[in-house]
């Protein structure tokens, strides 16, 4: 007999009942269980879609821990995701700081004087959102230029020229005929962010 267990209730007839579990686990009275399960990602949480084929003796327990279970409780997933994101943010921040320190040395070797206004704007920009660290270079004028490139021809180069202005060049994803939108201009932080959204480039730049 097929059953679907949700929380501490039991439902018969799996096909007619949605079998969505939020990280809850179950076990049978005799300590065994049999699950055929599928997974899919539902951002930001993992949800388990579980198709059950279990004996009648199964009793569902809410928040019952099963060792090596292929799913976990929703709050555990949330907590793990939060920790992972925090680690990524911290690593990202360290990567930016390390690169800036390297650039200070290289700038001297290359005879470039870093523009303090550009540096200030760059820091303001990375504080304004969770920005992915990719390439960070200097221009000959000593401005910071951050670059991101995607796998389908997407390209973003943002040069922080000071005065809260960004000179940008953005190429959108290539379409089926290999063409793409190419934008070259300068604008405020908000204008740049709007354009990133419009060209569907936000995934490239934000964590």
């Amino acid at each position, binding site marked *: 007999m097929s059953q679907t267990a949700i929380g501490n209730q039991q439902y018969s007839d799996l096909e007619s009942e949605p079998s969505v579990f939020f990280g809850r686990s179950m076990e049978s009275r005799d300590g065994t269980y049999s699950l055929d399960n599928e997974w899919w990602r539902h951002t930001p949480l993992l949800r388990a879609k579980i198709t059950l084929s279990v004996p009648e003796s199964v009793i569902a327990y809410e928040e019952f821990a099963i060792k090596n279970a292929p799913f976990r409780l929703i709050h555990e997933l949330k907590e793990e995701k939060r920790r992972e994101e925090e680690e990524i943010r911290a690593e990202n921040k360290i990567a930016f700081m390390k*690169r800036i320190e390297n*650039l200070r040395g*290289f*700038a001297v*070797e*290359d005879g*470039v004087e870093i523009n303090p206004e550009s540096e200030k704007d760059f820091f303001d920009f990375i504080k304004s959102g969770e920005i992915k660290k*990719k*390439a*960070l*270079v*200097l*221009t*000959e*004028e000593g401005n910071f*230029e951050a*670059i991101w*490139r995607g796998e389908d021809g997407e*390209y973003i*180069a943002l*040069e922080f020229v000071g005065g809260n202005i960004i*000179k940008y*060049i953005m*190429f959108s994803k290539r379409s089926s005929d290999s063409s793409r939108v*190419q934008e*070259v*201009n300068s604008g405020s932080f908000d204008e740049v962010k709007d354009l990133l959204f419009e060209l569907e480039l936000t995934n490239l730049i934000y964590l």
Partner: protein
Amino acid sequence: MKPDKIPSRDHVVRYIGPSFVEAGEVSRVKFQLRKGESGLSVNWLEKLGFESKDDCINEVYRVMSSGYDLNKNGWFAELQVGSIREISNNTKVNYDIEVIHKPKPADEKEGVLANISHAEIEGLPTINDDEEQAELIAGELVEICALNDLHSLSHHHI
């Protein structure tokens, strides 16, 4: 005199300091003409006649070092000439880009060696002349270049 165009299958390199490169990306500014420049300076690798690319780049480094203070943490951006020419086919680009061989004689007084492989990417606008086009073309050049790490080359060969 007829300009000495470099064959499309051949390659040119351009020196880039370490401040302008990270993670395989180059500041597009390094591919923009500065005021007063007629073209972007590059070196034609095949002209040097060495068998390996590394040997060609080492020779470019040796010759350029006689006139410029090159950083060993720097890079040589390598571009295929045909790909450079193709940028003119982009419907948004309004300039005819050409790669011309322009060897430089030695300057014995300054101790600068003759640069037989010197060439220029010509037909580019400067930022002052046409900022949008200069940025767009630089973005395209950046996209087609491959980077050669001078540090690893210098460690083994120079």
